[in-house]
């Protein structure tokens, strides 16, 4: 492409003709508006409904309030969420009984719903009840915090509620911070409830009864949402209103187009861009990149422990030794992430954190030896499945896996499957060998092991059944002794590293590309931008 002066001039002239912003002056209101472009759609305004997209969660966080919210901590010039800090959002604060069984929730007296009516304890009780009673995705999530029944919530007085837990669950309070724990204007919602639908689930799919920082001005499902700042919002950490008065969320499926938009200054923020675009973006004069590892997630290669030959631990170890970690890290995500391999420890890990770098390295000789030990010196044939939605990173990875395993005699057939098919087969445990990603909203080591490595359920990727892990994770959950908890966690990690139900690869960075003027970007556990934190400087 040759660009000379003339074409630039023509371009400039053309720009005034074609790309004019017809209605809105570029001045004040543009500065106060944040234009956010995403790849996916917002499909529901009620996050507890099945099928809610990540973008829906992101919107809900800005529109609804929860009682509590996680804190945030600095990560370079940006921020990342901090699950160890829990602050009040719609609640002013809480007090926990010494035995950890009783949480007293203090409401904010000045909090109002978007329609101007005050937030009452009845509203909160109704919302909490809905969380555990209505048929939705919320109850199973809440159960991970031992919140299972409406009886656990009690109105103490108009400004106070009480939540009782049957056991001192480590994640009881944390669960009130997640995307499902939205607080709803019960008076408004009840007006739209029916006998069949006592929790107004149908109505709340496309309407809101919220108190959050932003109010929905227009909602075009699958296209765009426009938000307006709630001038009466009281839920912030510092008591201030968010900086942006207006937010425009738009669905732009092509990552390349989203990148173009930011680079040309037409949009302010976007996440989930192609890793390959990042080096260019980082050199751009108009855009900057916040590259923050997704510290509550991991990308993995799973071997189904119930399927031959992966039921043999030697085979799993052999595969783990044969994988071309560095090449995959470079080629698939261009090195943009935190490695979860190449760990320097042996035997027992030094840290109880999870996910952490595992002591896996590429060692072809060892892989061959292990295969021989497993009785398969000539390798075997298998398939390696990837989902079409993740093809951008998974496809190069798969090609490398195929090549590397081929060197130790394992013949791999790559199967790229449409997302729905992939998910179904993964859920039905029919995939022997595949790659996927996982993120946990509540990143506690025991929670990872409980969620991903126990029980016959969807998220036990490798269908791994290990009684030690089951016992340890169950005990760690209610363990009040911090030192003991630490030991239990390390033990679980040790078993995991030895048994290799799945190979941890890395935590990919979440690359948020934004205009140079945007500040305050925070990586959140639900992997979406929180507009309340952002400002233009």
């Amino acid at each position, binding site marked *: 492409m040759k660009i000379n002066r003339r074409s630039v001039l023509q371009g400039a002239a053309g720009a005034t003709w074609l790309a004019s912003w017809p209605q809105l002056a570029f001045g004040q209101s543009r500065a106060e508006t944040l234009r956010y472009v995403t790849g996916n759609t917002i499909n529901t305004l009620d996050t507890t409904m099945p099928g809610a997209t990540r973008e829906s969660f992101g919107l809900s966080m800005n529109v609804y309030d929860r009682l509590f919210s996680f804190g945030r901590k600095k990560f370079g010039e940006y921020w990342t969420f901090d699950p160890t800090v829990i602050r009040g959002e719609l609640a002013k604060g809480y007090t926990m009984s010494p035995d950890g069984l009783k949480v007293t929730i203090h409401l904010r007296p000045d909090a109002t719903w978007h329609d101007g009516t005050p937030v009452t304890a009845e509203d909160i009780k109704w919302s909490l009840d809905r969380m555990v009673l209505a048929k939705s995705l919320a109850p199973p999530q809440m159960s991970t915090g031992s919140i299972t029944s409406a009886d656990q919530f009690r109105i103490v007085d108009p400004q106070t509620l009480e939540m009782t837990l049957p056991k001192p669950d480590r994640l009881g309070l944390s669960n009130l911070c997640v995307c499902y724990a939205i607080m709803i204007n019960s008076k408004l919602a009840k007006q739209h409830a029916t006998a069949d639908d006592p929790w107004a689930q149908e109505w709340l799919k496309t309407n809101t009864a919220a108190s959050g920082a932003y109010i929905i001005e227009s909602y075009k499902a699958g296209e765009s949402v426009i938000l307006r700042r709630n001038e009466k919002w009281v839920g912030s950490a510092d008591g201030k209103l968010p900086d942006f008065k207006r937010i425009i969320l738009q669905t732009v499926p092509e990552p390349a187009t989203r990148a173009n938009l930011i680079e040309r200054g037409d949009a302010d923020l976007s996440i989930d861009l192609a890793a390959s675009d990042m080096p260019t973006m980082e050199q751009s004069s108009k855009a900057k990149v916040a590259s923050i590892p997704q510290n509550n997630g991991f990308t993995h290669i799973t071997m189904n422990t119930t399927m031959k030959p992966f039921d043999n631990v030697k085979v799993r170890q052999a595969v783990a030794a044969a994988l071309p970690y560095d*090449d995959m890290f470079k080629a698939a995500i261009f090195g943009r992430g935190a490695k979860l391999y190449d760990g320097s420890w042996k035997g027992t890990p030094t840290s109880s954190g999870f996910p952490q770098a595992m002591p896996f390295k590429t060692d072809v000789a060892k892989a061959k030896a292990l295969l021989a030990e497993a009785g398969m010196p000539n390798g075997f044939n298998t398939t390696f499945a990837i989902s079409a*939605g993740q093809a951008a990173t998974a496809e190069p990875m798969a090609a*490398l896996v195929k090549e590397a395993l081929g060197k130790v005699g394992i013949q791999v057939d790559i199967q790229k499957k449409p997302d729905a098919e992939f998910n179904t087969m993964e859920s039905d445990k029919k995939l022997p060998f595949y790659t996927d990603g996982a993120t946990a909203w509540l990143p506690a080591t025991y929670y990872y092991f409980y969620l991903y490595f126990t029980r016959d359920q969807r998220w036990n990727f490798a269908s791994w059944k290990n009684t030690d892990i089951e016992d340890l994770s169950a005990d760690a959950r209610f363990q009040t002794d911090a030192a003991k908890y630490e030991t239990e966690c390390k033990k679980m990690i040790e078993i995991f590293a030895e048994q290799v139900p799945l190979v941890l690869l890395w935590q990919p960075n979440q690359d948020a590309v934004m205009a140079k003027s945007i500040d305050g970007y925070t990586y959140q556990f639900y992997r979406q931008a929180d507009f309340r934190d952002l400002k233009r400087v």
Partner: protein
Amino acid sequence: MSAAAIQRTSTARHVLFILRGNPVTAIASLGTALLVLIAIFAPFLTPYDPIASDVAHALAPPDAAHWAGTDQLGRDIFSRIVAAARLDLFIAVTAVGLSFVVGAVVGGFCGYRGGRLDRWVGRFVDVLMAFPLFVLAMALVAALGNRMENIIIATAVINLPFYIRFARAEVNVRRNAGWVEAARACGDSHLSVVLRFLLPNVLPAMAVQISLNLGWAILNAAGLSFIGLGVQAPTPEWGIMVAEGARFITTGKWWLVAFPGLALMLTVLFFNLLGDGLRDILDPRMRT
């Protein structure tokens, strides 16, 4: 010189005459021939193993070692393009061949016999035609699984109605020709009239359609690849290479998309121009 030889030379002369007056077709014929040769001898023409990765040299621009640069995994793009020629041509030729054979026979019988068979097949064709064709192909591949044979089947299915209609119409205009009735008077059954008389006569006209369709089938496969329903990695295929390379357009790594795109484009171009040329050769109106 025997009469048959006269016939041959006169056909050859006619073709030559058309080609002389139509350099574009001449170039297209040469190009197509070259393409077929490349496809046949692909394994001998690739300087590198088209699926061997070399992450250390990933995303290298074209140079003396890698004429078309390397891709994300450091694979030689030129080798991949050459290797893909074979696969793409195979997909296109089989898919089009399949729909041609089925379509010509079914359409031929419908056009010749008419009646109930024709009506039912007509219904079936109507149903197929009413589908948004690309979406039908997508759905078929999604339902059957994205393997090469299913891509071929899907491409064949969405081409089928055109062949049926085309063969039907062409046979229909000829079914009352004297030589058809003469064949029957000479003791041919309907079956043999269609298979031995009508279809061979329809063939030249269909050759145009086939040629145009070959290009279209390649594009179709590329489109399927773009939305993630193409052949499985790491098999080199132009559509996938273009779709993957498209991700790198904005980063200035043009060679990832440009070279496979060029191969794809030239192939489709050759097939299309050849089809046009064939039409000229076969269309009596052009014989002035």
